[in-house]
């Protein structure tokens, strides 16, 4: 594997979707664009799998570091690398984007008089930016990629979204994220200057992690980062962009938003390790936000009349669980958190992809408009049930081990919050099973549902990948837990060592 490790794999990973985006944008009228998009998506996936193979599982440090001067005058570098915590997000992201490309197959051409090439170009740009967030080890590079996800998302939602309110949803999302970017940038600047000691400001994450901050600055940095990342997570008072986005965005894009928890990743990577004292001291804040999100998300999902809205609110509850797991600062809590985040990519992303196939056939995901889906589309229903059960953490699915670890950690450290989380799991189960019964069982309320055809072979093939992974990880999660262990232990040791 050493030969592979010398090749700049991470830069290749970032460059592939960018090249694909460029090709798609240039070929925007040709149907060739979607093949190019799929091709570059698959190549990116392959590259991410190569990275997983070349990764040294015993080393808890950042690996495959690539570094180059970017804006030398300001000390800003192009610095990328992965460790055990971020590694698996790369193939998860790549896989989800392949799904999003397939879900957009031949739909975009019919839906709007717009060029489909542009749709795929935006999708691939978004993929490059998302992968950049997971690889970036320079705070400014991280911020750059973080903000760079906005323009493609904005265009995807406002041009190819659903319903009349898509444009206001897109603007609201853009503005909330931009406003969240302000505290984030200020947090990074405060960090850079606190480490500088009169010299040039420091943006490189490894350096920042190696030198502790003064305690007072830690609180400032932690709260700024929490606020900035919290807009994307989303923490409960900052979540107002989520429901309109879930309803208005193209469903494949919603799958990306729900499946890729950049905000939670930011908390693991930046906010907590960079300000460990403040984070340990404010553990109740994280646990509190988590508990509120679990209960609120569960109740809101229960009453939502649209399957997309229901899934969006359940994803809010999932993030609450992640926050709760993080707040225990223990190795198994962190393992559970990362596992749970990966589970979203598979189960959450998968469920939204199923909905996008459903909507293409029936024109709606409103529960009242459905009913009897199982009879006309048994395969589609089976996939949706599987992903939904993984979402509520049924044993045997990938949702179970993560959830179990988190609940155990929470019961140990925040007993009250852990009990609330258990109750939240019951809510989540009810929130999924009751609409599932109404929408999928019973007589078809809508002739379109009865006439709809089941999944096409390519769609089945696409969904089989996350479905296999959901079951595989659920039955035997040890490889992933072992992969996470060194990095998780180092992460916790750095926190505890203070």
């Amino acid at each position, binding site marked *: 594997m050493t030969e592979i490790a010398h090749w700049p794999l991470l830069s290749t990973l970032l460059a592939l979707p960018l090249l694909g985006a460029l090709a798609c944008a240039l070929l925007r009228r040709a149907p060739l664009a979607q093949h190019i998009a799929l091709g570059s998506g698959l190549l990116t996936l392959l590259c991410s799998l190569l990275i997983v193979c070349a990764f040294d599982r015993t080393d808890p440090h950042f690996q495959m570091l690539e570094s180059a001067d*970017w804006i030398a*005058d300001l000390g800003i570098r192009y610095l990328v690398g992965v460790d055990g915590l971020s590694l698996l997000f790369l193939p998860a992201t790549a896989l989800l984007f392949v799904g999003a490309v397939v879900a957009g197959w031949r739909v975009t051409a019919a839906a709007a008089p*717009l060029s489909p090439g*542009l749709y795929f170009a935006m999708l691939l740009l978004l993929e490059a930016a998302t992968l950049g967030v997971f690889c970036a080890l320079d705070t400014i590079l991280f911020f*750059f990629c973080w903000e760079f996800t906005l323009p493609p998302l904005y265009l995807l939602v*406002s041009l190819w979204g659903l319903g009349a309110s898509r444009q206001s949803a897109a*603007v609201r999302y853009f*503005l909330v994220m931009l406003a969240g970017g302000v505290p984030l940038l*200020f947090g990074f600047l405060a960090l850079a200057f606190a480490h500088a000691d009169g010299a040039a*400001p420091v943006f490189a994450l490894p350096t920042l992690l190696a030198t502790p901050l003064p305690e007072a600055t830690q609180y400032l940095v932690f709260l700024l980062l929490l606020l900035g990342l919290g807009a994307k997570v989303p923490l409960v008072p900052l979540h107002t962009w989520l429901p309109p986005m879930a309803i208005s965005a193209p469903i494949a894009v919603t799958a990306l938003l729900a499946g890729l928890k950049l905000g939670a990743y930011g908390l693991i990577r930046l906010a907590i390790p960079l300000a460990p004292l403040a984070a340990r001291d404010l553990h109740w804040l994280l646990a509190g936000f988590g508990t509120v999100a679990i209960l609120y998300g569960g109740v809101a999902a229960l009453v939502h009349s649209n399957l997309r809205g229901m899934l969006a609110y359940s994803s809010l509850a999932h993030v609450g669980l992640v926050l709760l797991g993080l707040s225990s600062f223990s190795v198994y809590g962190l393992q559970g958190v990362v596992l749970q985040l990966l589970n979203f990519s598979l189960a959450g992303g998968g469920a939204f992809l199923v909905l996008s196939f459903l909507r293409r056939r029936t024109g709606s995901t409103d529960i009242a408009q459905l009913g009897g889906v199982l009879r006309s589309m048994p395969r589609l229903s089976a996939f949706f049930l599987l992903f939904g059960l993984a979402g509520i953490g049924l044993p045997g699915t990938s949702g179970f081990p993560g959830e179990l670890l988190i609940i155990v950690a929470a019961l140990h450290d925040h007993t009250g919050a852990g009990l609330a989380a258990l109750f939240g799991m019951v809510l989540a189960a009810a929130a999924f099973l009751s609409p599932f019964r109404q929408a999928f069982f019973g007589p078809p309320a809508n002739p379109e549902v009865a006439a709809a055809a089941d999944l096409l072979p390519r769609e089945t093939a696409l969904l089989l990948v996350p479905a296999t992974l959901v079951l595989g990880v659920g039955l035997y999660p040890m490889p992933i837990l072992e992969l996470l262990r060194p990095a998780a232990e180092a992460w916790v040791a750095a926190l505890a060592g203070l």
Partner: protein
Amino acid sequence: MTQAGYPLLATLQWLPLAGGLLLLVMREDDLALILGRLFAIAELVIAIDLHARIDVSGSALQFAERFDLLAYHAAVDGISVLFILLTALLGVLLSFYGMARQQISPVQLLSVLLIIESVQMTMLTTMNLLWFAAASAVQLALVGYLLWRWASSSAENLALSRFLQYQFFGWGLFVAGAVVLVWSHVDVPGGRWSFDLFDLLQTPQIGKYQSVAFYLLFYGLAIRTPLFPLHGWLPNSAGYGLIAVGPVLLLGVKVGIYGMARFLLPLTAEAVMIWQPYVVAFAMVGVFFAAILAFRQINLRRLMAFAVVSHTSLIIIGLFTLHPAGLQGALLLAVNFGLAVTLMLLMIGYVYRRTGTTELARLGGLFDRIPFITIAFLVGGLAILGMPGTPGFDAVHLVLEASIETFGALPTIATALGNVAAAGFLLWAFQRAFLAPRPRDLPAARIARTSRMEYFVAGAALLVLLAAGFYPEPWLRLTDSATAALADYFVRHD
């Protein structure tokens, strides 16, 4: 002192003038148009040559040329080169943009454009306050002529008279400030009547008249810039007048900001430090005031005007941090805004050629007909917001960094949120104009596809904008030592 083999700065000033005068006597035909464009391109080549030759390791002003009889003294440093490059680039873009077939007498327009470019080069290279003022007056008169001769509607009279009143009042203030400043320098031993920057810097300053001189010069330049609350001329002239050419000439190259960095800050350093809090407070109000007014606009062009006022305030905040990073950020921001606003105005011009209106309510559904123009407009807007990947990001980053150090976190965060408000109105306008459903009186067939020339103009501007955004190193290096030297004036007095 570095010297080229030929009088570089004089060529920069004379070449477009010669081109403009030549075109003035030529007939209205394609040959004249091609010739005019060649002149604009040649000017850009000379500007690039200047950039290649300049030595930016020190802060010294270079390529000095003097002709004592007329008190002609020209020299450049990294800051001027940045603005010169922008001016030359905009000259090329405008020479390709402006000459559409339906335009009245395009050759004359091109000739006036070239002459204005020449005068602007004089403003950017001269070391003499009076030369700066004189060139400024000529430029204003020519732009006024443009607004009058190529007006797009008959309601332009109010706009024109408002424009001239404001501008010449500001010009008067600037000249008065220059006279007061020189007067105060004559009084000290060794002083003499000279408007030359070098002479003025050599004699020690006396505090007595400095505040007066500062205020006169500052307001004179602020009206040009335009800075809240002195922006009254802009929305009117932007709302009438030429769609793109006029506003680009006034807003593309921020000579007001350049004048502040070149003359005001070094010459009245003590007064600048005394009045710094007031200027910044006004600018912070300006960021929000203009953003709020922009939300209320129903015309794309007037909205752009308020966007400019809002962002100018941000530049002023950066400039008056008096911090090396802040100064550098402010100057880069000025250039970024200039380029981005130009791109947006040109795209609005293209839209106007198709729709005959810039009223937001009467636009819509442009994206599926002219996607490239739409995207170019959006990228220009994103550059104004300081989105990563555009030069705005690095510049805003620097300004905020300096602002935290100088004014503390809270005012800086407020300013940054003001910038988010700006994002709000630009996106809102973008959606209304380009993405909203097409109004019934605007059939799709009336919106012609993007032409080859339009691809070229928009593509060139986009390319420069994105290249500068992803690789900002050269521009930072170009202005590094010059802004550091500028900041030194304010360290010494502490």
